[in-house]
Each structure stands twice: as C-alpha cells, then as structure tokens.
C-alpha cells in the first residue's frame, strides 16, 4: 500500500473542506472495498478522510411524516440488518444487508461506502434503486434514478459526501439474490417493491452497466402483483454482463427466476 495522508474530521463540513483541498484524496467509510483495492495497488489515493468520527452519520431513524427510513451513510451492514426499525418497516432492506459479504465484512462495511463505490455486483444499489430512495449529500438530494451512472460511476461530484439515504417505506418488497460462489457478490440480485407511487424492480449483478430497472416487469406487476406476472418477461442478454461465473444468457434467465421468487416472498 502506498503512503497517504490521514484525516479524522469530526463534522461533515470539516470533511468536505479537507476533501476540497485534496483532489486525489478519498473518503474512507467502512473500507471493505477501498482498503482491499489499495492493498492490491489498484488505487492509490493521496489522502484518506475517515468518516468514523461523526456519530450523526450512523443513525437509523424513522421519518414518520414522510413514512420513510433515514439511514446514515456510515450505518454498518450489520446495523441495518439487525435494526428493529428497518426490520419492522422495510424487512427486504434488512435481509439485503444481512446477505452482503460475510459477518466480518458486514461489521465494517457501510451503506454510504457501498453506493459511493457502486460496484455493479453490490447489493445495496438494487435496494436503493428498487425503493426509489433519495441520496442525501452535503450539498443536495439526488433521486436514485439519477444517481447510478454505470460501472463504479455515480452522480457524485468531486468531494461530495453522502450523509444519508432516505428510503420510502413500501407496501411490499423483497430482495432475492443469486450469489457468486466465490466472491459472495450478486451474480443476479432482484429487488421488487410495491410503493405508494407504483411498482419498482431493480436488478444488480447482471447489468453490463450496473444496476438497472426493468420496466416491463414493473408494468406487469402494477397490473397483477404475482410471480406469474413476470414469469415470461426476460431481460435480453445483449445488455447483460458475461463472465466465467455466468453468461449473459444465464443471467437473463436468473433475473426472471429471482424476480418471481422475490414477488412470491414479498
């Protein structure tokens, strides 16, 4: 690992200020992807700005007026998975968090870190997009539909810091994951949600350009919320990823199967 400067700001303002002066620096959240990449010398930031000293970033709260869960960017996966509030309001999100990586990774990894990294096989992007969540940063609010911009690409500007994510509480939702036998990331992960505003279906792991929504499934489920409704809807392999673990064709098939199972279990 190369050398780097290390900063431990105690407020969002200070963190953003440090980042502004260090264009080659990075925020350090849980570090489960970032530190691993730095060890392999795949990335070498000049500075790390540790986000661990801002308790407000770790909060999980219900905004009852908006009927939404506000989850701090530094909420660890294990905290979301074990949160009574999340379990009661959005069980699908708790079970999504509980299926990320392994116990040790879940004890360190964070919501904000995951969606800032936007790994195309990560689980959280499916939950954020599937629930139509809003990403709150130090400077603005970004709708999930405007946030994910392709492989490891997001709408975040340089130095912009995610502080929380607002998840509207769905009527029904579920996440079904077919995991990679080696990495435990998603080969295909499908998040389905029946929201007040309509149905959303988001797929992670499969897209050649990262997480995406499946409109045909959303339309079908809006008419008829049942596993059968999506049974014959396939996402064409052309836009799907293909690797040694799964061809695009197989991923296409798995999306349909996982979508059915998600609907059935929601």
């Amino acid at each position, binding site marked *: *690992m*190369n*050398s*780097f*400067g*290390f900063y*431990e700001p105690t407020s969002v303002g200070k963190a953003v200020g440090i980042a502004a002066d260090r264009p080659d620096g990075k925020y*350090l959240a849980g*570090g*489960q992807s970032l*530190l*691993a990449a*730095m*060890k*392999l010398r795949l990335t070498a930031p000049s500075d*790390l700005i*540790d986000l*661990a000293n801002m308790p407000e970033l770790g909060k999980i709260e219900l905004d009852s007026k908006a009927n939404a869960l506000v989850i701090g960017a530094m909420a660890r996966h*294990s905290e979301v998975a074990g949160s009574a509030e999340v379990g009661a309001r959005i069980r699908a999100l708790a079970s999504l968090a509980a299926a990320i*990586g*392994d*116990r*040790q*990774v879940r*004890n*360190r990894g964070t919501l904000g870190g995951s969606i800032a990294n936007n790994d195309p096989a990560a689980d959280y992007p499916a939950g954020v997009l599937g629930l139509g969540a809003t990403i709150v940063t130090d400077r603005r609010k970004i709708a999930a539909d405007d946030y994910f911009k392709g492989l490891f690409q997001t709408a975040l500007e340089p130095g912009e810091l995610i502080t929380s994510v607002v998840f509207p509480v769905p009527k029904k939702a579920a996440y079904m994951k077919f995991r990679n036998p080696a*990495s*435990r990331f998603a080969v295909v992960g499908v998040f389905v949600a029946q929201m007040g505003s309509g149905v959303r279906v988001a797929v992670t792991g499969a897209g050649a350009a990262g997480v995406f929504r499946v409109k045909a499934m959303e339309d079908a489920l809006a008419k008829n919320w049942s596993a059968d409704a999506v049974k014959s809807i396939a996402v064409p392999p052309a836009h799907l990823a293909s690797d040694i673990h799964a061809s695009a064709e197989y991923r296409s098939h798995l999306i349909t199967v996982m979508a059915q199972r998600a609907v059935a279990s929601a």
Partner: protein
Amino acid sequence: MKISVSLTVNGKPVSAEVESRMLLVEFLRDNLHLTGTHVGCDTAQCGACTILVNDKAVKSCNMLAVQAQGARVTTIEGLASNGSLHPMQEAFRKHHGLQCGFCTPGMVLNAVSLAAQTKSPTEAQIRDALDGNFCRCTGYHNIVKAVREGLAQMA
C-alpha cells in the same frame, strides 16, 4: 505520514506512532508480536486475520491500525484467562475443530462473537456465520460441532 494511535489490546493499553498505511494486522503481528493473528489472503475473504474490535468480529487485514483508535481489541492470545482456555477454545479441542491451526484463531474469534447474536443456532445458521472464514483442512464438519458446543458452554 505517522499518526499516534492508542487502543486496548487484550486488556492492556497500547500507544504507538504508526504509518497511516499500516494495517491493523501488521500492527498486531509486527509491532506487538501477537503472531496468532494470521494473514491468508489479500482480498479480505479467508478470515484468518479475524479479531474482535469492540467485541465485533472484523478482518484485521482490511482495517488500518489508525482506525482502531480508542478501540478494544481482542486477539486469540487474549482469549484464555488465568491459564484456562475459553469455552470456545475448549470446544474446538474436544471436537477436533482444527488441523493445521492456521485458520483457527480467526475461526474461534468469529465463533465467540456469534454469542452476542445467538446461543443456540441451527446448523445452517452456524454455517452461514462462518462464511467469512475459510478452512482447507477440516471440511468444517467438526468446526460446526465445536461452535455449537462452544456457544452452549458460553451461555
């Protein structure tokens, strides 16, 4: 860049000036000579480096030493007390839950931390909880038995 870090390791306060890039596992092994924590991979998957930070199992190869500022760290060397093995260590011995011993410290510490979640898990829950710990020797059969008994003894 050197940074001063203070933490508690196995009940003893420790302070040091460390490079920012120093991993927690390197700090434990190289600075404190606690070589019971092992490194088996470079992608934070095998779990041989698992330790407890504030009673939670984490992979010390995927955490900087400076991130342990103020933390309470437990390594395998700190588990036995007054010369007698922790119930989980005893259970691993009784059920032959280890062979070469390399994955064992991480396996035992992860199992110990499971007690905070459940004292009587099902076999499937135990196996899922061990997802972040690779063992190439035992086929996990006896580890599962050991974890079950260790948790029961901790209750």
